[in-house]
């Protein structure tokens, strides 16, 4: 187990390094400089700015400077929001995004596993088919359709929830974005749980457990569920990535001041350091979730502890 974890860590660190290196190089290779848009700038000011941002240094030196900054938690200055550093922007957006993502992931796991369990106990029946079709529906409908559709129904038509805004994390404001973000992931987890259970319930040890006279619920929860959740664990990394991607849309739709919004704004405004910083942060988050999944494997199935 420790060996596996170390090995994963040994992959994760170079991966993160590669992300930093490649993204950084891409930024510098971009045609045109960051100040090209500002026509009115006189050459002296421009030179001063270029020097201030360290853009006149050779590429390796710039790289070192950036990585050195990263190590101190400094992602550099934002080019568009002149009064803020990227670190400020991230610090303001991250809590919003983490709240949103954390709640949505919890909801998705609870919904998905329950749906998968219910469907598996009624395998082949109508409940099973209806639930599984609903799960497919959830995975197939993109967040940027669910988001507006939820707003249309619950905010505009029924008036049960506010249309948009953060309001300091007010639960009423959070409900719709969290649900919209959770639904596709819940669908995927539901399908994986159902498939995992179907495969596990066919195995010999389940027949042995039944033969010992155990109750069906005990067989399901004690003997079948844990190994059946292995595919769900391996989905955790992609789920985290999906959540982050979804959050970009959801934050845009619901006008939430999260990281995703900064990212989109940064991308539209060509604010390179901001985009770079968010990408690196996201990469780190996804790697973290993959490591978490590895830890879960060992608990779910002791054979994987090596």
């Amino acid at each position: 187990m420790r060996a596996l974890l170390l090995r994963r860590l040994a992959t994760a660190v170079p991966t993160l390094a590669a992300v930093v290196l490649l993204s950084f190089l891409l930024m510098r290779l971009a045609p045109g400089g960051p100040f090209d848009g500002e026509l009115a700038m006189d050459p002296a000011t421009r030179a001063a700015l270029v020097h201030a941002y360290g853009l006149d240094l050779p590429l390796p030196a710039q790289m070192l400077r950036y990585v050195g900054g990263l190590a101190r938690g400094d992602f550099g200055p934002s080019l568009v929001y002149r009064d803020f550093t990227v670190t400020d922007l991230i610090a303001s957006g991250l809590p919003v995004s983490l709240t949103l993502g954390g709640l949505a992931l919890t909801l998705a796991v609870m919904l998905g596993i329950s749906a998968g369990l219910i469907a598996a106990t009624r395998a082949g029946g109508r409940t099973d088919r209806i639930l599984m079709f609903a799960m497919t529906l959830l995975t197939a409908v993109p967040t940027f359709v669910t988001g507006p559709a939820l707003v249309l129904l619950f905010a505009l038509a029924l008036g049960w929830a506010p249309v948009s805004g953060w309001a300091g994390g007010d639960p009423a404001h959070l409900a719709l974005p969290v649900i919209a973000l959770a639904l596709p992931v819940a669908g995927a987890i539901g399908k994986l749980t159902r498939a995992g259970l179907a495969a596990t319930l066919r195995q010999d040890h389940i027949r042995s457990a039944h033969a010992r006279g155990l109750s069906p619920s005990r067989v399901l929860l004690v003997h079948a569920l844990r190994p059946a959740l292995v595919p769900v664990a391996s989905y955790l990394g992609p789920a985290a990535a999906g959540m982050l991607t979804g959050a970009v849309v959801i934050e845009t739709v619901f006008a939430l001041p999260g990281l995703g919004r900064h990212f989109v704004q940064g991308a539209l405004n060509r604010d390179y350091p901001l985009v770079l910083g968010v990408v690196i942060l996201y990469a780190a988050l996804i790697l973290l979730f993959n490591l978490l999944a590895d830890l879960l494997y060992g608990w779910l199935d002791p054979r994987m502890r090596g």
Partner: protein
Amino acid sequence: MIRPRAPGLILSAIVLAALLLPPLLPWRYDVIDWGGVRAPPLSPGHLLGADGVGRDLLARTLVGARVTLAVAAAAALVSLVIGVAWGATAGWIGGRVDEAMMRVVDALYALPFMFVVILLMVVFGRSILLVFLGIGAVEWLTMARVVRGQVMALREQPFVIAAEAAGAPPRRIVTMHVLPNIAGVALAYLLLTVPQVVMIESFLSFLGLGVQEPLTSLGILVKEGADDMDISPHALLLPGGLLVAILICLTVLGERLRDRLAA
């Protein structure tokens, strides 16, 4: 829950309509009808109404679907080619080569790919070519993993060893015994890749980072519809509904094929 043939039929109908119908409509997707701004559905000349600048919604939706499907098909094919080549090579050669190749896939998997694609857009400007190249480059990873697993399993199968004993050269074993036996699984994952690509493309377009005006796609239309949804909800529901229908049909078809092959 749904009739076995429904997804295939609905999908074919959508594809045919997107390909054939637009020229038959009274208004082109990008022509502005100054008299028809925000025309409601069932207006004369605008069967499903028009948008905020008077462009026919039906024509725009169909052309949007065409663009979305074309990008998706192209990107899925790119992912098929790269994924099968990469996965089959790794799985067949095995050993260190396999380990190194799959390490690359693992590392790429761990990237926030959507954001890398966006990064590329930011850096190199937006073009439809870049959109589908970028997406194809993202989506081959799953295909590569699946194909590699299949090839590794097949490589140890007695019938492959028997072919070796029969004197068949490696290239022939791969092309005659291994690839035909993974074709079904590859097709299933190809079908499942298409909705993924549709999703990414619409996502990028929704954010304003994908296909550019005046060309349109379902993602752009959903975005436009969402902006106006309090005034004309049908402008959101029509492209959104079509997008969802495409995604569901493809997902159901792909999953069904995959499950049948796994059984």
